[in-house]
């Protein structure tokens, strides 16, 4: 479980996140949505040990501050928003970078198999020899996800569930691969792992997330199941844009079309 209470983060003296408290559970996809600059990525960076914070933040019952890089890397994987490589590694080599610090030691055959499996899951089988620097943006994003999947391995490890932190995992993907990657996340959660994802696509969020945190101006405006929090009122207020939320008749999944915006 991820348990955060009274978490605040300042960047260059400027408060970005103010006294956030939240709980995220393994076995579910927790989505963070909100307008640009609302502090979503900063929250992720605090939870992945990149930024110093005040307040309390625990990952699987342990204070994130007290965990070393090595310990954290065995408990969770992180998909960054932008990932350029400085040098021309092959896809295979990039994915293998996720194996730098594995919880369970693997031999060369096992590592190789893990790379193949991860690339298959993100739909990039046959890309192993390709140079990362020559891939398209969406392909790069999926290679990075394969690297993260290689790092965490199974959804549960020696010390409980593993976590995936995904910062806009589908931002540069076509619709087929958006669904594919969201399904990878869903499978990971179903297998007992935890997923926290920053998402911009509200419809994809409504379709896949179990729990949604709506962030605004460094605080959590509302949270709950998508069906509860995605209301016309909430969406209009949080995004400062007059939108109308509708529901799919079959299962009451909310959806928002940009067409509904009134000016």
């Amino acid at each position, binding site marked *: 479980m991820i348990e955060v209470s009274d978490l605040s983060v300042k960047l260059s003296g400027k408060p970005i996140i103010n006294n956030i408290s939240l709980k995220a559970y393994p076995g579910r996809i927790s989505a963070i949505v909100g307008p640009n600059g609302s502090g979503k990525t900063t929250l992720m*960076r605090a939870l*992945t*040990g*990149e930024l110093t914070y005040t307040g309390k933040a625990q990952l699987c019952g342990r204070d994130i501050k007290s965990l*070393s*890089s*090595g310990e*954290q*890397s*065995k408990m969770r*994987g*992180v998909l*960054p928003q932008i*990932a*350029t*490589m*400085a*040098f*021309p*590694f*092959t*896809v*295979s*080599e*990039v994915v*293998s*970078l*996720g194996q*730098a*610090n594995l919880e369970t030691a693997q031999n*060369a*055959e096992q590592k*190789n198999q893990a*790379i193949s499996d991860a690339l298959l899951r993100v739909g990039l089988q046959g890309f*192993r*020899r*390709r*140079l990362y*620097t*020559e891939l398209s943006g969406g392909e790069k994003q999926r290679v990075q996800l394969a*690297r993260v999947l290689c*790092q965490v391995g199974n959804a549960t490890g020696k010390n409980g569930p593993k976590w995936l932190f995904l910062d806009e995992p589908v931002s540069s993907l076509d619709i087929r691969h958006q669904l594919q990657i969201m399904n990878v996340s869903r499978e990971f959660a179903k297998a007992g792992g935890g997923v926290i994802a920053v998402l911009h696509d509200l419809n994809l969020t409504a379709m896949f997330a179990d729990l949604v945190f709506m962030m605004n101006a460094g605080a959590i405006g509302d949270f709950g199941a998508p069906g509860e929090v995605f209301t016309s009122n909430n969406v209009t207020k949080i995004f400062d844009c007059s939108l109308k939320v509708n529901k799919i008749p079959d299962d009451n999944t909310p959806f928002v079309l940009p067409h509904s915006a009134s000016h």
Partner: protein
Amino acid sequence: MFLSMLMNKRALIGWNKKPVFEGDRSSLARWVISVLTILLLIAMVASLSIGPAGVTFVDFISYMKAIFTENEVSDRNRLIIETIRMPRLIMGILIGAALAVCGAVMQGLFRNPLADPGIVGVSSGAGLGAVSMIVLGGTLFAPLTDILGVFTLPVAAFLGALIVTLVLYRLSTSNGETSIAMLLLGGIAIAALAAALTGILIYLADDQQLRDLTFWGLGSLAGATWIKSISIGPIIILCLICTPFLAKGLNALALGEAAAHHVGIPIQKFKTMAIVMVAAATGAAVAVSGGIGFVGIIAPHTLRLLMGPDNKYLLPASALLGATFLTICDVICRTIAAPSELPIGIITALIGAPFFLWILMSRRGFVGE
């Protein structure tokens, strides 16, 4: 042609029993490393048997035989091989390896193919440290000279290099992202400042110091002695021993600092170790050779093109290629205009630059983003 030959040699690797996985270039890298080892051995023999003094390969062979048998070797030949060529060879190997590895490490650390101790001002800092010691070592820094002995110059150069590297890193990196514009501009400014301070010191120097400075500044292995080799040997060898521990971190750093932390690299500790290593090895190399350019750029890049950027293999291969390259260049610069000598910097650039340009032209798009 040579490149494609190397690429296809994968099939010929007999000693490499590890399975070859798709997209994994480590067997190719091991093959390159073994070829480089053989090349270095050939360069070593060449360096000991070629020179203006007329001691030839045959003389070198009889010298080698004499070590294992009762054969006699003329004192002259022994003297030339043991006190002139050998320290020069050892310094060439140490300095070539140090410069090439420092280039590779800095490129990895700054995540940029342009980083090199010579280009971003680290060598200038080391030079300022060394010049300060040559000029002020007898007066202002006399107590230091007494304590450090033969290590005075390398230590001073190390401190100069360390200060520059730390300033550069603080200047160019914020929130884990390195700005190459800041790195290059900062490097140029620091190099200019170091040059000005060095100028002041030269202005203050007396005649004997000026002579020392001139010889030092030529960028040459001509002044090689056993004392100098011993003064830089431990520092550079220690740095080279450290490099395997840097490989994993440098690979992860290619993803960016945040991602390196995510995969479990203690990034602050790692950066400190890499910076101190670069400063120490650059400092030691500059202290005795006066800064030989281009090795730190050409060796790592050539190897990345040949076998990929995996630092586990890139760092040892860079050391081997740098050592071989500098040894060969030194042989050329002392024979081509014998009995006088060309500064080695001319040869490294004359051979290195066209070769490097040719590689870049033939493999466009391979350099990185």
